[in-house]
Every structure is written in C-alpha cells, then in structure tokens.
C-alpha cells in the first residue's frame, strides 16, 4: 500500500470541507489523532488526518513536516521530500524540514546529509535527532574520533540519547571490545549496532544485534526486517522468510521487505549445483548453458587466490547469478555505494547474470573474480577490512587476472585526475559510503584499485598481504600505511597521486582534442567518408587509447578499412580494440571471422573464447567457436561449445545435436556421440550428414568386436 496526497484528493478534501464544516473542524484539530493513528500503523488514516490539517492550516509548516515524516516512515521518500520542501518555502530555516531532508539524504547515502543536518542544528541547536545523525554519518565514514565527538554532543543535549550511547558503544564493539560503558540496553540502540555491523560487512554480528533488538522489542519491525534481510544475505532463507513475512503481516511493508519476500518467492525458479568447492545458483532457463563456464571460472579463481593469498577457504563459495537485474538489486537494497554488478556477503556472492545486461556492457567473469577477491579479503580479516581496501584489491585482481579485464579509465576519471579530486588514502571510505556525486563512486573504485596496483608494483605483493592481516587486527588505514609502507599517509598520497598523474598525463592532456576529434570521426562515418574517418581516427586514437565503449575510434577505423577493402588494417584495429578490453560482441565476432577467413583459426577461436566471458548467451558464438575448435582438433572445447548450443534450446535442433555428436566422436565418447545423433535424427530423420555419421558409427561399432576377437 502506498499512501498519496494527489491534487485530486486535495480538491476532494476541499469540497468535503465546504459540505461538512463540522466534520472538518473536528479533523483539523486532530494532530494528536493523526499521530496516534500513525503510531498504530494506520498509515491511511494518519495520512487523511494530516491532509485535513494541512488543508485547514496551509501556512503552518509544522504539519507538513510531520506529514513528511509519516511518508518517510512509510518508505515514500519522494513524497516526504516534497512536503519538507513545501515547509521550507513557508519557513526557510525550518529545523524539522531540514532534518527531514538530511534523513532522506542519509538513507540514500548521498553526500549532502551532513550539511543539511548542520543547517538543522544551526536553526535549532537542541535538535537531538540532527546531532545523532551527525554522529551516525561520521561513523559510517569510519571516522571514529569524529563520530565519538558528535555522539557526546548528542548526550550533552540529552543524556538519555539512545542513539548517542549506541554510537559510542558501536565504536567499542566494532573494535572487538566486549564490554562497553555505553551499552544502550534498548532495542533501538541494538538496531543501530546491527546497521553498523551490516555496512562493515560483518553480517553475522549484524544478525546478532538485530536479533537482540527484536528480542527486547518484538514490535520493532524495522529491526526484524533487517534481521530477515541479513539472514537472506547469508543464505539462511527459511528463517529470513519467516521474519520478513512477520513484518509484512504486521503492516511493516517497506520496499526492502516487500522486494526481499518477492525475491525469495522467485527462488523456485533457480537450480543449485554443488561441488566440493562451489555452490552455484542459476535461473532454470539458463542454468545448463551457464553452468560449465561459471563452475570452471569459480574453481580457477579459488585455486589462483588460495595460492596467491596463501589462505585456504573454510567452505565452498556460493554464487547466485540473476538474469533479472531488479532481483539482483534487491540483494543490495539499503547498502551504501555498492557496485551495480556484484556483491559479496562472506562466502556468498550475488551478481548479475550475463543475460541481465545488454551484450557487451558487462564482463561477468571480471566481476566474478572481483567478488571472489572480496571472499578472500573478508575471510582473511574476519570482515575487518575497510571498504576502500577490499574494493581496491578486487579491482587490482581484475586486471591481474587479465589486462583486458576490469574497467577502463572513463572520461569522468580523467576529469577527476585533472581537477585533483582524488581523495586522501585515509579518507577513501568516504568516496564509497557517502559519495558527493555518483561519479565519485566510480572514481573511488579506480583510485582504490590503482593504490593497490601501486603498492604491489613498488612494495611487492607481500606488503599487500601484510596490510590485509593488519586490517584483520583492527588497525586503521593510517596506521597500516605507516607500519607497512614506512611513511605518513600524506606522503603516500603525494607519491601515489604523482604516479597516477604521470601515467595518465597523455590521456588527460589529450582528452579535449580526442573528444572533439571523435565527434568528427562519427560524423564522417555517418557520411561514409571513409578517407576522413581513417585520417581523423588515426590522428586521435592514441590520445585516449582506453576508450573502448560504444562508438570507439577502433571500431570506426575498422569499419572504414573494411569499406575500403583493406581487411588487414581492419583486423589490426579490431585486434587493438580487443586487447584494450573492447567488449562489443559484434566487433569481437567480426575479428574472429576475419582471422578464420585468413586461416588463423586458432587465433580466431581464442578471440571468440573471450566472448564466453562477456556474453555467453550468444548462440552464434557457440556455433562458430565449436566449429573452430572442431577444425583445430580441440575436442573438449568443441564439446563444451556445442553443448552450449544444445543447452540454449537451438532453433535448429537437428544441426545442434549433430554438431555435438561430431565433437563427442572426436573426444572419443562414442556412446554420447550416438545419443546425440539419435536426438538429431529424431528431430529430422532425413538429415543426410547425420544419417551418414550414424552409418559410420554403426560400422565402427560392428568392426570393434570383430577386431577384439581377432586379437
């Protein structure tokens, strides 16, 4: 149920007021009644009362603010923000309205929350909730000193401030101190503790605190909902569902609760494949297709990381791949600054399936290796690693696995470097948890990754390993930098930023020229002026070689060379594009086709194989790659690819089963080959190539016993 305050209803309310003045008079005076209905979770009733109040007293901002808080409580931030803004139009420094907007910003982890809370406090220095919010925001940034100072200010306003005590207690608890003088002994306080353990990825402890909160106050459904969601994150679905269903039945039906229940209802469409090291959950419709690729990459990543991190995982890693991005998004609801592609909860990874994104926009294997790295850093530190460092290691691992993987330098990152917007290393978490803009998250991922690259290059891998263990001991970033890099964080920033600026200088300096040039190239391509495309494209291509997104210079050049009949030059451009990390399936297939035509079948197959890690849903890919592997005598590769064709539910089942039969035969699996031939001929009994192969196989199986008798 969503409550609304549409103009139509307002008009109706006005009419109602004219027709029934006595009734309205009673309602208009009923702020207390509105509050009581709200407390009783009769949101509809409370909404009606507030609407009548605002109608009756349009110049009173207080009613709008309370009405806004009702909306906020009902998970309707947009409507709430509208009412807070209306209140500010009536009174520009209304503390409650400013606080309301600050709470919305905080809930969305946006950077403006602190400024709004401070404005609210300036308007009303005794506004406890604003002071408590400042403490909470500081702790979310892992700035313990600031958080403690703000929490003490809250306690100075009201010595019974539950939130103030909870923040101080959480600082102790996060530092693994079992006893604290600040234990709030209240359900709301434990709920706050649960929140902080959750955003620090310490889900088990988060669950304990949410459970404690619910035990103290069984009616605290916001804590119960979080208990359910975090249980779901760790895969304890049965209890998770029970807790969330209780919330729902109690009338607590915020977006997170509703969507989590909906997601768990959809789990019936998923199948689970378990091995000794891996648990893979895939949607039934694509499970057979994706399983071989995911399982082999999961095993490869685990083996690589166990050796590299010198750490043995205690249990299998679970990966869930969602073909519907909205389902995946439910897994990250209420969490700050998370990457949009994957998320790791201890030993469980949730991520978009390759089919959840447009082809070429997503390198699923790069994402998998990124998330797998989190599994290791979280397990090695017992979840006590700062956000920036685990993300930095994960980004570092993407390009360590393959230089073609990982995200390229985007124009936004170049601008951030140019405008000197990189954060000091000690404040990196802020860029993830409370980014000032969406771009800051992207820049922070890049910066964190580059910091780990830099430390690896300059100080060696063992230094990074030592840092992981330091973080596991609870050391803060500044202390770890001093201990392992033997320098002050400010000195590190100086050296690191100088290194980044040097390595990106040519791109930063050439970006404006590239930007102008690429527009001209696109225009020339539109006019099919291929000579101009080649002239302009070759002039600007290397000014920004990392740009491999839509309308890349490499692809324009390949198009131009193809149109001019210069296949060799077109192929060179596409090879550059692929090696720079280009992911457009059509361009990759074009390169593979050109290589195959030129007799370079093995290279063609290797190029196509890249696409399996980007968009394995492409039927044409598996058909072509299977044929290439078959020609090259890679029987196992051909079996895998033709199995993918069959798993996808081919348009041409007879051909698909026949191809798979040939691959099995080459792989010395005659029984499987025969089964596939039968499937082919069952679909098309007159299919001549399959008939011929059946006769050959039959002759071979008749010959085999005779040969054995002769021996």
């Amino acid at each position, binding site marked *: 149920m969503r409550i609304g305050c549409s103009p139509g209803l307002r008009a109706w309310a006005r009419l109602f007021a004219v027709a029934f003045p006595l009734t309205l008079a009673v309602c208009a005076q009923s702020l207390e009644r509105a509050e009581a209905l709200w407390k009783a979770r009769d949101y509809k009733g409370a909404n009606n009362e507030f609407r009548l109040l605002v109608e009756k007293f349009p110049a009173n901002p207080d009613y709008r603010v309370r009405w806004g808080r009702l909306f906020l409580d009902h998970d309707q931030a947009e409507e709430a923000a509208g009412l807070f803004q209306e209140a500010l139009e009536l009174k520009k420094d209304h503390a409650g309205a400013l606080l309301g907007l600050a709470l919305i910003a905080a809930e969305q982890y946006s950077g403006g929350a602190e400024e709004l809370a401070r404005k609210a406090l300036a308007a009303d220095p005794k506004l406890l909730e604003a002071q408590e919010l400042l403490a909470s925001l500081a702790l979310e940034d892992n700035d313990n000193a600031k958080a403690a100072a703000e929490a003490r200010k809250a306690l100075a306003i009201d010595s019974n401030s539950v939130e103030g005590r909870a923040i101080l207690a959480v600082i102790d608890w996060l530092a693994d101190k079992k006893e604290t003088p600040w234990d709030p002994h209240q359900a709301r306080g434990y709920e706050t503790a649960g929140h902080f353990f959750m955003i620090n990825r310490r889900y088990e402890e988060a669950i304990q605190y949410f459970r404690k909160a619910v035990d103290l106050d069984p009616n605290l459904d916001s804590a119960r909902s979080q208990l359910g969601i975090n249980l779901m994150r760790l895969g304890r679905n049965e209890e998770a569902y029970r807790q969330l269903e209780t919330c729902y039945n109690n009338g607590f039906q915020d977006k997170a609760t509703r969507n989590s229940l909906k997601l768990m209802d959809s789990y019936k469409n998923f199948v689970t494949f378990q091995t000794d090291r891996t648990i893979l959950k895939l949607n039934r419709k694509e499970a057979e297709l994706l399983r071989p690729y995911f399982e082999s990459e999961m095993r490869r990543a685990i083996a690589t990381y166990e050796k590299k991190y010198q750490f043995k995982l205690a249990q299998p890693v679970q990966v869930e791949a969602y073909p519907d991005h909205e389902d995946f998004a439910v897994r990250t609801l209420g969490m700050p600054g998370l990457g949009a592609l994957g998320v790791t909860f201890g030993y469980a990874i949730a991520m978009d399936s390759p089919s959840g994104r447009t082809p070429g926009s997503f390198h699923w294997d790069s994402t998998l290796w990124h998330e797998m790295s989190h599994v290791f850093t979280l397990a090695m530190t017992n979840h006590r690693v700062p956000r920036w460092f685990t993300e930095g290691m994960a980004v570092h691992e993407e390009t360590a696995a393959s230089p073609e993987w990982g995200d390229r330098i985007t124009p936004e990152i170049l601008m951030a470097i140019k405008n000197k917007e990189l954060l000091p290393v000690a404040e990196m978490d802020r860029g993830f948890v409370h980014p000032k803009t969406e771009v800051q998250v992207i820049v922070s991922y890049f910066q964190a990754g580059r910091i780990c690259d830099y430390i690896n290059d300059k100080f060696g891998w063992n230094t990074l390993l030592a840092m992981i263990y330091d973080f596991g001991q609870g050391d803060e970033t500044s202390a770890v930098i001093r201990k392992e890099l033997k320098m002050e964080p400010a000195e590190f920033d100086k050296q690191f930023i100088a290194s980044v600026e040097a390595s990106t200088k040519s791109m930063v300096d050439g970006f404006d020229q590239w930007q102008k040039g690429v527009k001209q190239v696109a225009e020339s391509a539109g006019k099919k002026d291929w000579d101009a495309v080649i002239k302009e494209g070759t002039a600007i291509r290397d000014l920004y070689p990392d740009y491999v997104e839509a309308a890349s210079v490499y692809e324009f050049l390949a198009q131009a060379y193809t149109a001019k009949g210069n296949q060799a030059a077109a192929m060179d451009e596409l090879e550059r594009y692929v090696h720079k990390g280009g992911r457009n399936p059509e361009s990759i297939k074009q390169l593979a086709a050109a290589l195959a035509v030129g007799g370079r079948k093995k290279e063609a197959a290797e190029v196509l194989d890249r696409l399996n890690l980007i968009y394995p849903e492409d039927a044409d890919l598996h058909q072509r790659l299977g044929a290439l592997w078959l020609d090259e005598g890679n029987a196992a590769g051909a079996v895998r690819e033709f199995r993918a064709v069959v798993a996808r539910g*081919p348009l041409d089942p007879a*051909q698909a089963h026949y191809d798979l039969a040939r691959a099995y035969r080459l792989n010395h699996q005659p029984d499987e080959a025969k089964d596939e031939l039968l499937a082919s001929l069952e679909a098309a009994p007159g299919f*001549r190539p399959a008939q011929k192969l059946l006769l050959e196989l039959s002759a071979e199986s008749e010959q085999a016993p005779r040969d054995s008798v002769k021996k």
Partner: protein
Amino acid sequence: MKLAVLLAAAALSAPAATFYLTIAGLGGEADYDQRFKMWAEDIDTSLKRAGGDTVVVTLQAPTRDEIRARFADLTRQVKPADAFVLMLIGHGSDDGVEYKFNIPGPDITGVELASLLDRIPAARQLVVNMTSSSGGSIEFLRKPNRVVISATKTGTEKNATVFARYWAEALRDPAADTDKNESVSALEAFHFAERKTSEFYDTQKRLSTEHAVLEDTGKGEGERNPSPENGEGRLAAVFPVVRLGANAAAARDPSKRALLDKKEQLEQTIDKLKYEKAAMPEAEYKKQLTALLLDLARTQEALEK
C-alpha cells in the same frame, strides 16, 4: 494399379510454380526507407538464388495503382495449381476499423488487399504482413487454404517492427530448415523469425512491442505458438516458401519409386514411434529408433546412387 497410374500422371504433369510478390512500403524517414528496401532486396535475392519454378517480383515503395496493376498481371499469369506468396514490409496502421498499408499516395486497405488476393487463382496462398499493426489485417486476409502471418498480434501494436529482418534471414539460413528436408516451410520460417524477433528484444533489454502470429484455418485470430492443440500451422507446415536443395529430383525418377515408398514408410513408422516414446522404456525406444534410422539412412543412400 490405379495408384500407380495416378503417380505416373503426377510425375509427368507440369510442376506447379510459385509466384512471389514482395512490397516494401513507405518508410517516412531515410532510415526506415533504407531498412525496408534492404529487407525486400534480401528476400528477393534469396528467392532468386533458390531458383526453381518461381516468379519473383519485388516492388519498392509503389503507389496503390502500381500495386493494382501488378496484381492484375499476376491474376492473368497464375494458375490454380500454383502457389502465391505476398510479403508486405513497412509501416501499417489500424484505427480499430480499418487496417492500412502505408505506401506513397493513398494507402491500401486490408479490405482491398483481400480483394486483390481473392482474384489470384492460386489455390494455395501465403500472406506475410510484416508491418506495424499488421495483426489488424488478419480479419480481412484470412481465408481457407490461405496462410496469414502477421508481425503483430493485433492492430494496436503500432511500433515499427523488426520481424521482416528475421523473415528475410529465414529464407537464406539453412538453420530455418529444422526438418532438414531442404526446403523452408512457412511454419519453419515463422518459428525462426518469431524466435529471433523475441531474442532481439530480450537482448536489447527492451519491452517487446511486436508478437507475431500465424493463422491458417481461415477463421482464427492468429496464434503465437501454432500447434496441433490449437489447430493452427497444419497448412503452413506443408507450404514451402523456399527450396534450399534439389530434393524433388528423386521424386521424378520412376525407377526409384520403390525406394521412395520404403523411405516414406520408414518415416511414417519413425513418426509413430516418436508418439509412443512416452509410453515405452527408454532403452527399447532407442533400440527401435536406431534400427529404423539406420534403415532409413541406408535407403536414402541407395536412392542417391
């Protein structure tokens, strides 16, 4: 004896021809004009390349008078034993009362198209209306012995369609020939194009704005999944749109009649066995199927000698 005489007569009689008329309508924008023209040319090329006893006519953005004139020519040429295929590519519109195919000058309505088709003597007809809103034309075009395929389910699916792109692909891609009889039937081409169209929208992460249907009973609304259960697709399954090989050659050689009869008998037995699959042990099914398929393969080999 009587059957043998009839078969001989059939073998000696002149084979029926297939007449194809493809019309690309008005794009309205350069991009659509180019796209419609390209798809029509693609179809034209595939049909001409396939050869056989066919007459292939393609009109690019004709006026209503030009369409009428071409139909008049065809009405004179086509014999009742021939097959006739009309393919429409472009934009269509439907106001809930009338379907119109957009062409330069006055548009042509579904009613008029039906009237022109009714004058074509060919007993077997196929109409593939690939325009937007083409679902609105089914009620005018459907008729016994006529297969009607439309790119959209109803007249209310008004967005430009991509079905034609994949229909054109079906006429040149051997993958569309799912039963491997070296010809692509209307039903096979429909399934191919419908599946590829769905994949296009899935891949692009776009809400599908076209849902192709097939109607060949002369009285239905069109089915997205023609099947024996809904009674649609029987006529389409035996309506060859394009032949990919010379599979008819053997049928004209009287000396191979016995082998052909055996082949047909084996194919029927295999079909029967497939229906019985669910009711028999898997091993037994495989054994019987293998024996039949081996026999069929050897018979086919003998036919090719």
